[in-house]
């Protein structure tokens, strides 16, 4: 039989710092691996569409003709699948969550990547001379 077992815990709680933090005034605990939200870099995207195919939530839409990359943050389940599979490494995972919004919608990014023009072989040879 145990009496006053909670006293130890209660005393500890009184004397120690609060276990909670005053979010959002203090930042939330995040680690290097934390999955917050997907960040897109339009200057590297080669419009291959693998992220779109590998997204289990179908949150990503890549339009080659319009050169846009769209993400629906409300569908995205932040599984890191697109970041893992992106061959051009244009996607990365930020540790912070996206800010709350009052209107639902998709975020559209423009793909600015320009395929470098490969100089013809003879011209390259001429440049070398």
């Amino acid at each position, binding site marked *: *039989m*145990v*009496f006053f*077992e*909670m006293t*130890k*815990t*209660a005393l500890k709680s009184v004397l120690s710092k609060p*276990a909670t933090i005053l979010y959002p005034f203090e930042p939330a*605990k995040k*680690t290097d*691996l*934390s*999955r917050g939200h997907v960040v897109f870099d339009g200057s590297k995207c080669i419009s291959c569409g693998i992220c779109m195919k*590998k*997204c*289990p939530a179908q949150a990503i839409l890549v339009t080659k003709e319009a050169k846009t990359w769209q993400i629906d943050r409300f569908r995205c*389940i932040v*599984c*890191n*699948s697109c970041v*893992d599979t992106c061959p051009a490494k244009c996607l990365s*995972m930020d540790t912070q969550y996206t800010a709350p919004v009052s209107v639902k919608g998709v975020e559209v990014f423009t793909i600015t990547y320009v395929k470098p023009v490969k100089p013809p072989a003879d011209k390259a040879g001429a440049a070398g001379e």
Partner: protein
Amino acid sequence: MTKQIIVPFGPQHPVLPEPIHLDLVLEDERVIDAVPSIGYIHRGFEKLVEKREFTEYTYIAERTCGICSFIHGATYCQAIEQIMNIEVPERAQYLRVIWSEYSRLHSHLLWLGLFADAFGFENLFMGAWRIRERVLDVLEQTTGGRVIQGSAKIGGVRRDISGEKLDAMVKDLDILDREMKDLTTVFLEDESVKHRLRNVGILSREDAYHLGAVGPTARGSGAAFDLRMTGYGAYDRLNFQLVTDSCGDCYSRCLVRAKELFTSTDLIRQAAKKIPDGPIDVKVTGAPNGEFFMRAEQPRGELVHYVKGNGTKFLARSRIRTPTLTNIPPLVKILQGCELADVPVIVLSIDPCISCTER
């Protein structure tokens, strides 16, 4: 004869945030029968398997449950690996055990808190959840997700834990053990808690066996049944004692879970000691053709993932049987003959996870 009345319990009830509905047939204050009904939160996960590639379905399988998510993902992966005859590297198997046991710690601490809340001990509830935060921090530091870990994949795991991190984790386990010891002493020794839980909601060993109780609900009634004993994954290389109790009341179910916390920390220590170096995954090519029933032990009991592939990237069928589903018939049996005021405590004592159950 006393007049019978029906009192509805749920789907919205203060004690349980999850939607299960029970029609309690009462005679005075005594429950004569309980008629359960589910179906408020069906999400169609098993149909979704036909629309998503089997590799991407891992992320969906994991989201079946918000508490034992890692074990869902890992069990699904193991089912696919069995069909495709994939040899998972040793290190990955040990890492899966470590994360599974952390999930178990997190689930049991969550349940202990909710249970304390159900019998009206708010302070204890907060205490349990404060300790749980320590476990969630480790999960986030090692996998990137507090609740949805997302670190299982077909052929291994997605992330590795460095040697230094493993050492730090084992060191932290000592603090965790001490804190859990203080917490479980209150659960198991305190007079008022005992008074509330002893001889409430008794399930006999025979009933537990015949009605298909699993997990701590079965072990609390003395049925020594734990799938980790079958040695799937790396469990066959680790030693642990099964926790059982013979009384079969709410206190026994609480005792089993409280003692399993220490089994889990012990298993993590052993796994961290024995974990070999090496690769964490193997390359998977092709598509599954065949079927497999994979069983694993979740914090709540036996989990079954049935997977059937037809040689394409899209699976033909997936069936998930979660422990709560099999624990509902024993729950109905326990409720028969109890007092109305005991119903919230009894319902919580089986650790119901309705979102899991309905998938």
